[in-house]
């Protein structure tokens, strides 16, 4: 007696008629956590030791002094996203975990330090991306840009013509649209 079926690497039975393969997708997880020492290490440690593919992680205070909010961008097939949510929820200092809707508002901030030889052109490009120069000296101009990851990527591409010296990006922060609560 030999069985006929097979499972894929995610342990899912392969249905020959509708072979379900799960491609990685981007998911934004928002976690409310206890605001106490060590929580960031606990969360980031979890993602690395379980090999979840993490793109960015931001953390900041909320309206409640005792809580902080983490926004975590991961790229995983759906079973991996589900597993990440459940593992995150298991950590004792984690209060709640939600996966945001695809249309949730996502923003990140970038600061881009470029060669300052053409200040007017730099300002023009900054205007195009709704950014602004926040610092300037003889040699360099530093511009701040906020927006979706795609917009920030595009802005950086545009600024590269001036010669980029340094970049810093915050990673994505996100919140649900409309009156809907995030947690």
């Amino acid at each position, binding site marked *: 007696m030999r069985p006929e079926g097979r499972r894929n690497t995610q342990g899912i039975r392969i249905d020959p008629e509708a072979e379900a393969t799960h491609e990685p997708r981007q998911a934004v997880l928002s976690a409310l956590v206890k605001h106490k020492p*060590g929580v960031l290490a606990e969360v980031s440690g979890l993602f690395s030791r379980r090999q979840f593919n993490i793109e960015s992680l931001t953390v900041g205070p909320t309206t409640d002094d005792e809580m902080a909010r983490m926004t975590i961008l991961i790229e995983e097939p759906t079973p991996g996203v589900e597993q990440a949510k459940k593992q995150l929820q298991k950590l004792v200092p984690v209060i709640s975990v939600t996966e945001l809707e695809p249309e949730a508002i996502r923003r990140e901030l970038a600061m881009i330090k470029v060669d300052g030889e053409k200040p007017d052109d730099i300002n023009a490009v900054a205007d195009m991306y709704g950014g602004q120069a926040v610092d300037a000296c003889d040699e360099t101009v530093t511009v701040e840009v906020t927006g979706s990851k795609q917009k920030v990527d595009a802005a950086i591409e545009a600024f590269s013509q001036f010669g980029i010296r340094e970049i810093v990006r915050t990673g994505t922060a996100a919140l649900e649209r409309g009156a809907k609560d995030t947690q």
Partner: protein
Amino acid sequence: MSERASIPKPEDEDESDDEQQPVTTGAQSVIRALENAGAEYVFGVQGGAIMPVYDALYDSDINHVTMAHEQGASHAADAFGIVSGEPGVCFATSGPGATNLVTGIADANMDSDPMIALTGQVPTEFVGNDAFQETDTVGVTQPITKESYFASDSDTVGDDVSEAFALADEGRQGPTLVDLPKDVTKGETDKEPKKPKTPETYTVQTEADEEMVDAAAEAIESADKPVILAGGGVIKADATEELFRFATKYEIPVITTMPGLGAFPEDHELSLEMAGMHGTGYANMAVTNTDLLVGVGTRFDDRLTGGVDSFAPDAELVHVDIDPAEISKNIYADYPLVGDAGRVLDQLYDAMTAAPDADEWREQCQTWKDEYPLDYQMPEDEPLKPQHIVETFDEVTDDDAIVTTGVGQHQMWACQYWTFREPRTWVSSHGLGTMGYGVPSAIGAKLAAPDQEVVSFDGDGSFLMTVQELSVAVRENLDITFVVLNNEAIGMVRQWQDGFYEGRRMASEYPWIPEFDKLAEAFGAAGFRLEDYDEVEETIQAAREYDGPAVIDALIDPAENVYPMVPSGGDNGLFALSEDQL
């Protein structure tokens, strides 16, 4: 909760509170928290940073067992937790004391064993300065505990311990740790610790979704080849009676995982015993060919599943587990049932309206039992076969005798040739596979169940890793029989070298090893040497009759291997019965 647990629950204690002195220090609050939680034993080793806590223990009724090494303390506490069902407690000082506990903590974490570790730490003002015996214990242990706490205040340190104790015990059990800076334990406080209670962010679902239960029940009823896979979670949840009722009522064959040994009586006709790498042929045939698998309290570890692609490939999976994160982690669950094992088995029992029509399947399982019996040869001109020693020992003991082991071939022979009939009689290192687990775990098991016989099967390699704990067994006069299945090699490695590395036996054979019977005598235990078939029963009986720890150095056939075997990542349905089938 286990009936064997001799630990009084706080509510059963009629000692009135006014007998207790009010606490005056953080350390006393720590001990009070343990007393309130019902702790009866602590396993540990003294040291600078934990001294205030030990000083507070001086006035307590809690018994302290001084171990030879902190690893021994963590394994003893772990085994105490397995056998009693309540968190075992271990203490260590900062730095090396704490790092020596790490193996046992990781072991408890892999096997979901309830345990709490309390570690000393350098005074708060020195933390971060690389002070003498400073280690970031919370940092080291956070990934291998349910939670590691850093105590920051003498007023709340008792609450931290209470919470850690409750957390180790509730939901899916596991280890917790509280790191105790010396200034916090020495510091003054008059705060009594809060009652043991899990943090409010920790929620446990005990009952599964009714609709999903109904759907699962329907799938089981209509299955042709149903099988139950009972994991360690059945034992942890004290759900063996519920499992028995469900399986026997609906006549569904039962396989266990290795931690699930004892979840279902192995001498029952529905039992197919253990599946996986060294499971029985019939269990592996059943798990491969089933069309409906009911997994209860199991995490589908790779030593059980073999290659995922060929694991129960035609089966729909009903997965019962208290930890939602186990559902669909390794094997996709068609019917996820999150909840307490006993409760959900009862829900399923009630939801079923008929038994599956599985006469043919049960017959098939019987045929496999006849086709692939567990078997070994005993030629008289060859050295002793270890399987025979395990079987003989099993025959002379009661059903409730507890078996502990090290890790290696001897552990597999114990799984295969001992017939487990009761829960909490199998104490081993499954997920982590920790050599050296055998001796200290026998100590923890014996103290948790003083009225039950305890036998520890060990390998010569594993025994050497924690043999110093024999001194503790002698000091505490613990009636334990240690059987070293001595093949003068780290045999499991030697077996893999012969099977997968062309017999290149690199660093697996011991050119010289101690005479364990004499070593036992040096420790003050009784020592026996066993070399011949006609001495087996006699030697076992003599060792059992000795009042105190006895060690049998059993010289076994160094060439003996463990079969059946599914090579790592292989197909369970294609197990090998000998080396040439690998």
